[in-house]
């Protein structure tokens, strides 16, 4: 991938190394990259992300109604079937329908992502505002927050799962929430630091507005945009992390169909039945992608300056 040694090509737009006709596969890659790249930088990608999100929400709402089979129904006769007309996504080693299980996993995934985001807002917003407004509290608490961020996400989540005891939905929300809340605190904290120096806060103080009112009505309200953006990214990261925990077998109990859990169960049959892993992974990647794109879009829309901070 290093620039070819070709003194003649300096500063020119034509590339002699490609002057002949490049092989077909390379041309296909080039074309695909250009089309996708142009797409990703345009508004239409946000639209696509919103469409993905909308379809996920529809799945959550009507999933059980359209799901072709019971996600937990065993059928030994149909085990390890490749995708076909009766089982669009194929079946796993117990003959369970992958499509139904993937749809059912959507619910649990979005539920967990939403809970973790809410948790991070509920903890991060008050704590961040108070830390940013009162220097003494901030000095102490932010050291702790920074220390929490020194642990790589999955390692901290694993340790927290051990501390919280047995696997379960609430414990997963707490473990992943505690991992991501410090990042929210950081965002709110730095926002508060800059807002509290503004003239309208000074004016509010001069008018004798009580501190709690300043924190709530003047500072917290003005931080909603970065908080929403950060919450969107938290959503994306947390569903990925939840999937990793489930994949490792320490997340939610294995009897609940989840994308990570399905991928874990499918590992034994990877070469024989890769569809068991392929489809939940695709759903996960698409969901994360849509939240990342929506987060980017909200950020650019609400405040273009945030691009540099987040």
């Amino acid at each position, binding site marked *: *991938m290093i*620039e070819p040694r070709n003194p003649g090509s300096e500063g020119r737009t034509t590339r002699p190394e490609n002057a002949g006709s490049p092989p077909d596969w390379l041309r296909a890659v080039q074309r695909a990259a250009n089309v996708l*790249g142009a797409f*990703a930088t345009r508004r239409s990608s946000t639209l696509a992300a919103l469409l993905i999100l909308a379809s996920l929400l529809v799945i959550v709402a009507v999933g059980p109604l359209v799901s072709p089979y019971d996600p937990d129904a065993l059928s030994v006769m149909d085990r390890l079937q490749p995708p076909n007309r009766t089982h669009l996504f194929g079946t796993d080693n117990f003959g369970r329908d992958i499509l139904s299980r993937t749809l059912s996993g959507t619910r649990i995934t979005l539920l967990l992502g939403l809970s973790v985001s809410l948790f991070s807002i509920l903890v991060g917003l008050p704590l961040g505002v108070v830390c940013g407004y009162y220097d003494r509290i901030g000095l102490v608490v932010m050291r702790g927050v920074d220390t929490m961020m020194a642990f790589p996400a999955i390692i901290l989540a*694993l340790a927290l799962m051990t501390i919280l005891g047995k696997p379960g939905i609430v414990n997963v929300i707490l473990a992943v929430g505690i991992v991501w809340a410090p990042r929210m605190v950081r965002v709110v904290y730095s926002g508060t630091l800059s807002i509290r120096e503004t003239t309208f806060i000074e004016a509010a103080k001069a008018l004798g507005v009580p501190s709690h009112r300043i924190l709530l009505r003047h500072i917290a309200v003005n931080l909603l945009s970065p908080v929403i953006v950060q919450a969107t990214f938290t959503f994306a990261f947390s569903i990925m992390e939840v999937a990793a925990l489930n994949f490792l077998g*320490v997340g939610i109990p294995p009897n609940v169909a989840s994308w990570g859990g399905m991928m874990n169960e499918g590992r034994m049959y990877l070469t024989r039945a890769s569809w068991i892993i392929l489809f939940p992974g695709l759903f996960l990647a698409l969901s994360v992608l849509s939240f990342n794109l929506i987060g980017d879009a909200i950020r650019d829309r609400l405040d273009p300056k945030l691009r540099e901070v987040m």
Partner: protein
Amino acid sequence: MLVSVLLVITVTFLLMQLIPGDPASVLLGANATPEQIAELKATWGLDQSIFTQFVKYIRNFVRGDLGRSLFYQEPVLRMLGARAETSILLGLGSLLVVVGIGIPGGILAALRPSSWVDNLFLVIALAGASIPSFWLGLMLMNVFAGKLGWLPSSGFTSILETGNLANLKNLILPSFSLGFVNAALVARIARSSMLDVMQADYITTARAKGLREQVVTIKHALRNASIPIITVVSFTFAALVSGAVVTENVFALPGIGSLIVQSVLKRDYPVIQGIMMIVAVLYVFINFATDLTYAFVDPRIRYR
């Protein structure tokens, strides 16, 4: 930096105090008599006050004693040492992918903005942020180990013990699946940083004095663009460690990442505690080393 290390140790210690029940009754099981539990607690010093325990804990840490595994009765440090080789090699391998693909890719993209290389890295970076590395790993394993049979699918035996360099082949797929995602991220940062620098007047000057384009790119532009690149590469450390936990599990590599997962499943607290601490301390050190690197790349920082 010492303060940060101390804080990391404190937080780990406090987190482990939150575990419901005590390790003594966990180890002895449900049939243990209260006397047995009390005796074991006394041997481990668990009957002393938290503060005394903490002081003792720090003293042991400084001496390199991280406690013993509840299950294997082995010192935690030795267990980590036995598994360090795999994890370090995996880390270096994926770092090689990150730097080897990310930086040249970013430079190429910056030299020809909105060319197909630029677009390719944009798409990969976007997709990379969304594709779980364990899924990528499994899919690569399916294709390159399963269908094509070019590379071994899993496992790793020590090179230090067997002296067999061919074992490195086992790390190609894991390193790639772990590093690839982060490589695209580094490429994006390298690109924007290079684009900024290429606008500068001294680049025009360098060209005007007739320097070859490669010299201008590598010596003049890259060096000045390197601080954001170094920052993002050092950030990938945390991402690589997190990813390694899952990747080692996917490829059945006997490293520290698979050790922590096993320990979580067995509730082997001292091992989890030891790994958390080592990793976080390493993180603090890497941040420190990154700051030192800035001064090395940009001499102006030294005079500030």
